[in-house]
């Protein structure tokens, strides 16, 4: 549900950078979304046409780059990922002590303008 607010912010950021670069139109947006970021790209896409209407973003294509979650075991320094999206102890030493290295990202990486 918070994708509505988030989509509005994406339009705002893209429009601001587009206007700064004297864009007539924005044709593509490249978004980076981490696996743990609680943002559903399908929902953003769903709101996109509605929110982008009558802005220089209208008709632009959204491109999502998903960053898989990556964890560092604090006991044995082993780096590992989620298995089928499920959180597990360190597969190497079974420790529950870990740090999230990647997967919380959520930013607008770049846009294409004409």
């Amino acid at each position, binding site marked *: 549900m918070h994708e509505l607010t988030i989509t509005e912010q994406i339009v705002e950021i893209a429009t601001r950078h587009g206007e700064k*670069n004297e864009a007539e139109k924005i044709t593509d947006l490249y978004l980076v979304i981490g696996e743990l970021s609680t943002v559903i790209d399908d929902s953003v896409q769903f709101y996109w046409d509605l929110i982008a209407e009558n802005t220089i973003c209208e008709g632009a294509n959204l491109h999502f780059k998903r960053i898989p979650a990556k964890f560092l075991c604090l006991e044995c320094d082993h780096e590992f990922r989620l298995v089928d999206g499920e959180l597990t102890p360190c597969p190497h030493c079974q420790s529950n002590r870990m740090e999230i290295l990647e997967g919380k990202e*959520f930013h607008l990486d*770049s846009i294409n303008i004409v």
Partner: protein
Amino acid sequence: MTKKISIIEKVQNANDLLAAEIQAQLQQAGLFSLNLMASPGAGKTSVIEKTLAELIPLYNIAAIDGDIATSIDADRASNAGATAVQINTGGQCHIDANMLKIALGEFELDNFDLLLVENVGNLICPASFKLGTDKNVLIASIPEGDDKPYKYPGMYQDVDALIINKTDLLPYVDFDMDYFKQGVQMLNPDLLTFPISCKTGEGIQSWTNWVIGQIKATKSS
């Protein structure tokens, strides 16, 4: 001709900047602030009532209650002695920094020692919207089940403290505390945890003692 513009701007940047402003505003006022988050029915308002019962004799307390509709929660906080303001989010599933900023305008913040923000009942969205409060607290509850850290990692990974409410129901439901705690530990190692029961009062004192410690530390800093 198409031109690529590099941006690399966090989508939540506008909210985060406003949250930083709120943080400065609250620090300036010298009060300690908590953002309480939980799923609907976990007992956010009950925890606030119990907290107020202990702390109202000692401190001036402001409460901001976020809900999609009604002022039921603010009324409960007000009846328990807080100066309370309700935010009706009108369908939004979380309080964002802008809504909090507006609600804070209703208070003379210098007159308060503690601010309790009760977020909208939801285990997904509130984690994505920083508010600028000193501490973020998640209230889990026994009947929700022991798998919630695994299903809602975003919520568990960034909080500063965890309340486990309704411990009086442990004998009646299948809740594996070790499995629950393993999930919490993986997402948020050594998270400060308060098992409590708003029904029996068990553990409330330990929670309110922590809040008192935080209020004192904020005042002396």
